């Protein structure tokens, strides 16, 4: 009797119920209550949508939402385009492709704090990028990558895409490998150029993979906080406060847990939308196979 195997789900159900679902309910309760460090473990006063209202009125939530969109778009576009391009370039056999892929996956596997630290170093006023830029005369003064209001968001978003590209490359490469080589041979005989092969053979055949990867990259960019934490800690000012990071700062730096919870609930709602899209595209893939 197959349904007896539902028992296998029990440990996960109990554990996640206790350490994932219950905290999520607590988060929602906190978001509609006044919670500070003094009242963290006392009875919370119910304040309804007051926390949400305060966040919106101060303009913080809206501004953070705008920055999140910019951040996610940069991470997703770079992650998808460069990831696919790298997969095409690394399709070839040979030691260079093999070693480069291994290097990229290794960098991907490194702790984000390690990657964040070295990029903070490289983007420093006296770091490699500014040394080269001023050295070849492109700039007279160093680019304030990490402490200019506009540069900082781009710089952190770039490093985030740097961290996600290897995974996307790996997945795209696996998808490209499943294309029958005879298709390329036929295309070559017909005189198709490399670009035409990419446009008319590779891109269409990896479309299902692209859809799944697109949502995964969107979510990755959206929930990202580690590079922000390490490289700018949300600054300068509020320049790199994305929605999830703003919630964290409100709770653990300002000790306004209610406000932080309300901001986080807004972020969670954003994730729910993406999760529904993801579940639908996964089901379609599994139904096809």
């Amino acid at each position, binding site marked *: 009797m197959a349904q007896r195997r539902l028992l*296998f789900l029990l440990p996960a159900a109990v554990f996640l119920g206790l350490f994932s679902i219950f905290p999520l309910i607590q988060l929602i309760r906190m978001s509609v209550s006044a919670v500070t460090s003094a009242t963290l473990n006392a009875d919370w006063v119910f304040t309804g949508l007051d926390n949400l209202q305060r966040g919106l009125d101060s303009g913080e939530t809206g501004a953070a939402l705008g920055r999140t969109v910019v951040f996610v778009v940069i991470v997703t576009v770079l992650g998808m385009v460069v990831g696919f391009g790298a997969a095409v370039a690394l399709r070839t056999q040979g030691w260079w492709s093999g070693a480069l892929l291994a290097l990229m996956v290794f960098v991907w596997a490194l*702790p984000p704090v390690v990657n964040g630290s070295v990029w903070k170093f490289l983007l420093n006023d006296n770091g490699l990028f500014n040394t080269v830029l001023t050295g070849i005369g492109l700039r007279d003064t160093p680019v304030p990558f990490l402490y200019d209001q506009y540069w900082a968001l781009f710089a952190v978003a770039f490093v985030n895409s740097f961290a996600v590209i290897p995974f996307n490359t790996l997945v795209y490469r696996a998808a490209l490998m499943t294309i029958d080589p005879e298709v390329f041979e036929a295309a070559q005989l017909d005189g198709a150029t490399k670009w035409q092969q990419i446009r008319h053979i590779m891109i269409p055949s990896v479309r299902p993979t692209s859809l799944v990867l697109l949502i995964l990259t969107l979510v990755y960019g959206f929930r990202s906080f580690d590079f922000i934490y390490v490289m700018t800690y949300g600054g300068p000012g509020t320049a790199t406060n994305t929605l999830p990071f703003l919630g964290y700062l409100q*709770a653990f730096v300002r000790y306004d847990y209610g406000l932080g919870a309300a901001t986080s609930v807004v972020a969670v709602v954003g994730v729910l939308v993406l999760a529904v899209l993801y579940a639908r595209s996964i089901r379609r893939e599994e139904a096809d196979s």
Partner: protein
Amino acid sequence: MTPKAGPVAVLGKILLTAMYGIPILWIVLTSFKASGDVFDPSRTFLFRPVTTAYVEAMDATLFQALGQSVIIASCTAILVLLIAIPAAYGLARTRGWLPTVGLGLLIVLQMMPQTATVIPLFQTFSGWRLLDTTASVILADTALLTPFATLLLRPFFRAVPPQLEEAASIDGAGMLRTFASVVLPVARNGVATVGTLTFLLAWGEFLYAVNFYLTPGKYPLSALLAQQVSAFGINWPGLMALAVLTSIPILIVFSASYRLLRDGLTVGAVK
């Protein structure tokens, strides 16, 4: 036929090699520099290597943190496997509304921002008097990584032919024995992949560690690094030496499991 690399592909590979090679090279080079040589362009490659940063970094705090990292990452990996293996098998072999809902929930939980879950977990652990314990970090890391591990493992169990199990049950093996002696060995690559990934991710996790430990003396390596990189007036050679020391265990695990990761990671996303 193996495709030949055109000039554009070669250019792309040069750029990618620089993009991913330079950061690694710079971490290692900087960690062997004296403080005065760090930002001297004339001493980028030609400098007198010193091990000052390593000697200074390798104190009691570092070995304490290394121990914490090993405990947290191994316990998390074991706990995640204990929960995710049966769950993934159950989801791969059952039908109906319950597994569908379970699957949907796992997808949602996998996508939850960690900055959102750290707030209520901090409150819950504080109520349970679990703050400042290694158990709190392990439990939180396990909750964080179980959904991902289960979703990645499920296709490995789906790929096990059901006929194998039918044959075993005709031979009189019970459900648990069939699972342990027939299914699990066939899906061992998946288990190894997921175990390795969980270990790597738990090794790098720092947000729970930074918030649940109330004293930096108990920090694992990743949290120590996060704390030092956010400080003012960073000691770069020291920081890079710490980054190298944090990454060496990753390099060892990675070298042993690269093929597994390369082929196993894509199973969930590509058919």
